[in-house]
C-alpha cells in the first residue's frame, strides 16, 4: 500500500541530505565569513519559504502576511538583545541610563511594562515561539471559522502586515520606529558580532532550517498533510467527511507562523538589527515569490528558490544599480510564465530523467544543480565587485 508515499519520502531524504551538505559543508568551505553571513541572512528568509510550502503550496492558503510572524520573532529577539546592550554603564550618558537609546531620545524615562520580561532569555525564546503562534491562532480562528478563504484571506493577511508595520513605525518610543532596533551587541555576554559567533550562528541557523524542512516533510507525510492537500482540492468533501476544516487550516497557519518567527529571530542574531522593513507588505510578498520560484510544492525547492532570488538580487544590484529592479521583475515574470512549478518542477522535468541516465553508469545524486551553479556564479561576480 501507498507505494507513492514511500517513493516520495526516499527522494525527499536525498533532497534533505544534499541540502544539508550544501548548507553545512559546501558554503562554509567555499565562502568567506562576510559572504557566509550574507548567505545566513538569506537562509533566514528560507524559513518563510518553507512555511509557505506547507501553508500555500499544500494547503492552498495564500498568506501575504508572513512578514508579520518573521517580524514578531525578530522583534522578540531584538528586544532581549537590546536590553542587554542597554545596561546602565553603557548608557550612562543618557538622561535615563539603563533603557534602550531610542526610548531615551523619545523622552521615555521608564522601561515600558511589556519590555520587562524580555530581560530573560528563557522568556524570550518562549515568546519567539508562542507570540506568533498565538497571533496566527487568533487570525486563523477569526477567518477560517467564518469560512474566509482564498483571495479574501490573502488581502486580510496583507492588511495585518500593513497594520503591524505602521504600528511599529508610529510607536517610535516603544519600538524604535522606522529605524528598528539597532546596535545589538551581546547575548548573555557572548559577542554576536565576532567572526566566531557568526560561524556558530550560521551553523545554528542551518541546523534549525534543516529541522524545519524535515518537520514540514513529516507533517506533509501524515494524514494531516494528506488532508491539507485534500482540502486544497475539495474543501466541501473534507468537511462532509466529518472534519472541522477550520481547525486544520488554523493549525497549519500556526505551524507556519512559528517557522517564520524562528527565521526572524535568527535574522536578528545574524544581522544584528530588526526593523519594520521586514514586516510590511513588500517583504511579505517577496517571500511568497521565493516559494513560487523554488516550487510551491517542494520544501527543499523553497530553500533553493530563496537562495536563488536573493543571489540574483545581490548580483543585479551590484552589476546594474540602475536597472536591477527591472531585471528582478523580469526574472519573476519569466519564472512564473516558463516554469509554473518553479525550480523543483524544472528538476522533476529535466533533472530526474538526466540523473536516471547518469546513474545507470555512476551513481552520484546531485539534486538541483541549476540553482547551485547559479548561486556560485552570482557569488563569484558579486565578490569581484563587492
Amino acid at each position, binding site marked *: 500500500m501507498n507505494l507513492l508515499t514511500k517513493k516520495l519520502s526516499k527522494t525527499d531524504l536525498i533532497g534533505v541530505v544534499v541540502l544539508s551538505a550544501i548548507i553545512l559543508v559546501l558554503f562554509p568551505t567555499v565562502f568567506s565569513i562576510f559572504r557566509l553571513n550574507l548567505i545566513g541572512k538569506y537562509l533566514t528568509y528560507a524559513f518563510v519559504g518553507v512555511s509557505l510550502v506547507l501553508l500555500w503550496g499544500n494547503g492552498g492558503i495564500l498568506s501575504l502576511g508572513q512578514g508579520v510572524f518573521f517580524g514578531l520573532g525578530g522583534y522578540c529577539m531584538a528586544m532581549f538583545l537590546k536590553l542587554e546592550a542597554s545596561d546602565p554603564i553603557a548608557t550612562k550618558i543618557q538622561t535615563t541610563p539603563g533603557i534602550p537609546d531610542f526610548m531615551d531620545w523619545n523622552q521615555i524615562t521608564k522601561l515600558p511594562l511589556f519590555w520587562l520580561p524580555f530581560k530573560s532569555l528563557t522568556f524570550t525564546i518562549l515568546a519567539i515561539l508562542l507570540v506568533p503562534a498565538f497571533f496566527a491562532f487568533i487570525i486563523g480562528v477569526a477567518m477560517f471559522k467564518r469560512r474566509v478563504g482564498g483571495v479574501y484571506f490573502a488581502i486580510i493577511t496583507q492588511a495585518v502586515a500593513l497594520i503591524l508595520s505602521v504600528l511599529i513605525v508610529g510607536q517610535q518610543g516603544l519600538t524604535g520606529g522606522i529605524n528598528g532596533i539597532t546596535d545589538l551587541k551581546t547575548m548573555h555576554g557572548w559577542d554576536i558580532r565576532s567572526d566566531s559567533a557568526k560561524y556558530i550562528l550560521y551553523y545554528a541557523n542551518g541546523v534549525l532550517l534543516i529541522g524545519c524542512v524535515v518537520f514540514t516533510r513529516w507533517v506533509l507525510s501524515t494524514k494531516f498533510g494528506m*488532508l491539507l492537500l*485534500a482540502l486544497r482540492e475539495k474543501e466541501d468533501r473534507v468537511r*462532509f467527511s466529518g472534519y472541522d476544516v477550520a481547525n486544520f487550516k488554523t493549525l497549519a497557519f500556526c505551524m507556519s507562523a512559528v517557522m517564520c518567527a524562528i527565521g526572524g529571530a535568527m535574522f536578528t542574531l545574524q544581522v544584528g538589527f530588526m526593523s519594520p522593513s521586514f514586516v510590511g507588505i513588500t517583504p511579505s510578498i517577496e517571500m511568497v515569490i521565493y516559494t513560487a520560484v523554488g516550487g510551491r510544492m517542494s520544501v527543499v525547492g523553497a530553500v533553493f528558490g530563496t537562495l536563488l532570488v536573493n543571489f540574483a538580487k545581490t548580483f543585479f544590484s551590484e552589476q546594474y544599480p540602475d536597472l536591477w529592479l527591472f531585471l528582478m521583475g523580469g526574472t519573476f515574470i519569466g519564472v512564473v510564465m516558463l516554469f509554473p512549478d518553479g525550480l523543483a518542477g524544472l528538476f522533476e522535468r529535466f533533472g530526474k530523467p538526466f540523473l536516471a541516465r547518469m546513474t545507470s553508469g555512476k551513481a552520484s545524486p546531485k539534486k538541483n544543480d541549476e540553482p547551485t551553479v547559479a548561486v556560485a556564479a552570482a557569488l563569484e561576480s558579486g565578490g569581484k565587485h563587492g
Partner: protein
Amino acid sequence: MASHEMLTIQGLGVSFDGFKAVDDLIGPNGAGKTTLLDLICGKTKSTSGTIMFKTMDLTQMKEHAIVRAGVGRKFQTPSIYENLTVSENLEVSFPRGRSAFGALFFKRTADVAERVKNVAEEVLLSEKLDQQAALLSHGQKQWLEIGMLLMQDPELLMLDEPVAGMTVNEREQTAELLNRISKNRSVIVIEHDMEFVRKIAHKVTVLHQGKVIAEGSMDKVTADPRVIEVYLGH
C-alpha cells in the same frame, strides 16, 4: 429503503430571496432535490422546521458533526481528491484522527489497511489502489466517492444521482453495489433514471415543486396519474 423513524422531516423550509425551494416536506424535482440533501447534511441552513435523525435535530448541528452522527452524503459530480491515489482517498476518509492533532499523529495501522482493502473491493477498485484518482474514469470516480463514504460506515447514506454519466454496464454494477451496501444501512438515492430506480428502490417518493406528490412502491408510483402528468405533461 429508509427504515422507519430514522429520519423525520417536519415543516422544513428554506427560502432563497423569497422563493421557497422546499415547502412543507421535501425537495422538488429539478429545482430543489439537491437542496433537500443540502438541508439534511447541513450545507444549507433551513429557515424553519426540523430534521430529526434518530433523536438529533440536524438543523442545529455543524456539517462535520452531522457526518460524525452517521450521515454520509455523495455529491452530484464526483467529489474526490484527484491529486491523491485511490487508497489515499479512502484512507483520508477513515473515521479516526478527525481532529487536527489527531490527524497529525494518525497511524496507518493494520485495521485501516484492511478496511481500505475491503472497501476498495466493494466498490470494484481493488486493481486501482495505487493509481492517482484523477486518472480514473467518470464511473470509477463515482464509485470511489461511494467508497469514501463507506469508509465512514454511515447509518444513513445519501446519494445524489450516482449513475449520472455512467455507461449501461456501469449502471448495472452500481445497482448491484447499492443493493449490497443497503443491507446494513439506510440509503436515500436521488435519481431520474426510472429503470435504475426500479432496480434498487424499495420505496419511491416523487417530489414536484417542493411537494410530495406520490409515495410507495415503484409500481404504485408509476401508475399514479399525477406522476405521469408531472413527468410527461410539461
